[in-house]
């Protein structure tokens, strides 16, 4: 079980350690800076931290024996002279990394391989621990990529990367907004997946267009990779065929809207979500922060609230701010209002680590 958490916040990267049964903030790096995401590579223990300096752009850092070092940020190729590319609203899309939204380690047989998803929609791969990056041109140049749209952010972005534990050349990514994409050859070619998802914000004849699906988060079960869970803009969906087709889960209380989903590494029917009222009201219902958990593939859900604030709680939990540790025993939850909670019993009860942190963007066991 993991005793260490990395918490990415608007004002720094906090390290939280388990100490005698309690979880305590033990240190902070990049204090004052906007840390948006981390990855700790289970193959070599190296950590990566994405920062957004606003004026000075997005940066990437890698841990060293003594701290952190800046490494190259994935960079888009030069836009051809005179080429214009406009988004849904007619705005020119700048081919420049405006956010690092996903970081994932490659397979056990490819040390140093790191995947990185970005806004405005580029997927990058490094084969040398982030020292250099290559954009996946076959996905970036795909005609359907140009139909991706910004969802909550201004530009479309890749926020979920699932490397198949059986074969690392099989990678699935999810886009907000652009559905789910899959490669079976390590990124050389890409096909769209996600039949069966439904977008209620589209006209009826386009509601089932896989490219129009606003996937908020995609999670794949490690022991049963055919099982994938999706938290979507207007629902929860589950797949039993590696994301080729999905079934909608309905009737979930208190709601089916939210951002994150995590799936148990060995039990494909067990997954956790953090519900908010709805897309136009992104707060917990009745001011009560809750986590929902299914143990039977979505037939039934437990509403888990013990230890979470149940009066006047307006915490929003972003897609990378719910984490499950490697054995599937401990969970951590971070909110936009600076609340951080840990559960050591799969969500049955929660202990508050802090409610005064800066806005939390990502929580990761490390």
């Amino acid at each position, binding site marked *: 079980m993991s005793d260490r958490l990395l918490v990415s916040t608007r004002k720094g990267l906090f390290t939280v350690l388990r100490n005698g049964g309690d979880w305590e903030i033990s240190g902070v790096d990049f204090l004052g800076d906007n840390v948006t995401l981390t990855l700790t590579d289970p193959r070599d223990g190296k950590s990566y931290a994405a920062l957004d300096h606003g004026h*000075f*752009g997005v*940066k990437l850092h890698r841990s060293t024996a003594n701290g952190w070092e*800046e490494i190259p940020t994935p960079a*888009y190729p*030069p836009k051809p002279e005179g080429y214009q590319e406009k988004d849904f609203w007619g705005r020119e899309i700048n081919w*420049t990394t405006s956010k690092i939204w996903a970081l994932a380690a490659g397979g056990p047989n490819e040390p140093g391989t790191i995947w990185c998803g970005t806004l405005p929609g580029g997927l990058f791969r490094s084969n040398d621990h982030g020292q250099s990056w290559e954009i996946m041109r076959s996905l970036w140049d795909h005609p359907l990529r140009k139909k991706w749209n910004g969802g909550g952010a201004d530009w479309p972005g890749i926020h979920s990367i699932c490397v198949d534990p059986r074969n690392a050349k099989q990678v699935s990514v999810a886009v907000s907004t652009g559905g789910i994409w899959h490669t079976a050859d390590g990124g050389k070619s890409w096909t769209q997946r996600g039949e069966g998802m439904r977008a209620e914000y589209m006209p009826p004849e386009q509601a089932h267009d896989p490219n129009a699906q606003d996937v908020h988060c995609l999670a794949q079960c490690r022991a049963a990779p055919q099982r994938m869970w999706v938290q979507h803009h207007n629902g929860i969906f589950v797949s039993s065929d590696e994301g080729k087709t999905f079934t909608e889960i309905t009737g979930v209380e208190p709601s089916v809207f939210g951002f994150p989903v995590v799936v148990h590494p060995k039990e494909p029917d067990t997954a956790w979500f953090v519900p908010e009222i709805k897309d136009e009201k992104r707060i917990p219902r009745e001011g009560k922060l809750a986590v929902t958990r299914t143990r039977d593939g979505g037939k039934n859900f437990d509403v888990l609230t013990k230890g979470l604030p149940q009066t006047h709680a307006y915490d929003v939990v972003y897609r990378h701010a719910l984490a499950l540790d490697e054995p599937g025993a401990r969970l951590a939850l971070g909110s936009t209002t600076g609340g951080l909670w840990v559960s050591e019993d799969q969500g049955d009860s929660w202990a508050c680590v802090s409610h005064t942190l800066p806005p939390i963007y990502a929580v990761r066991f490390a």
Partner: protein
Amino acid sequence: MAKVVFTPNVQRHVGCPTAEAAGATVREVLEKVFADNPQARGYVLDDQAALRRHMTIFVDGQMIRDRARLADPVKDSSTIHVFQALSGG
């Protein structure tokens, strides 16, 4: 040679001492400075080598007009200030 002065706010991220370089345009001068300080380049320019959206550059007190190509002319006696734009807020 033109003198290039960087905002003090960037210094804690990457050292950008005041530099001197020759060139007829902002682009020519800056690229010479960044050749000696490549890490600083990404703090000022985006992936397309345009000026970052919330950065600004003054040449002898005048804000540059060509943020994409940085073609604004520079004199040998010019001072170039690379600053953060106060874009609001």
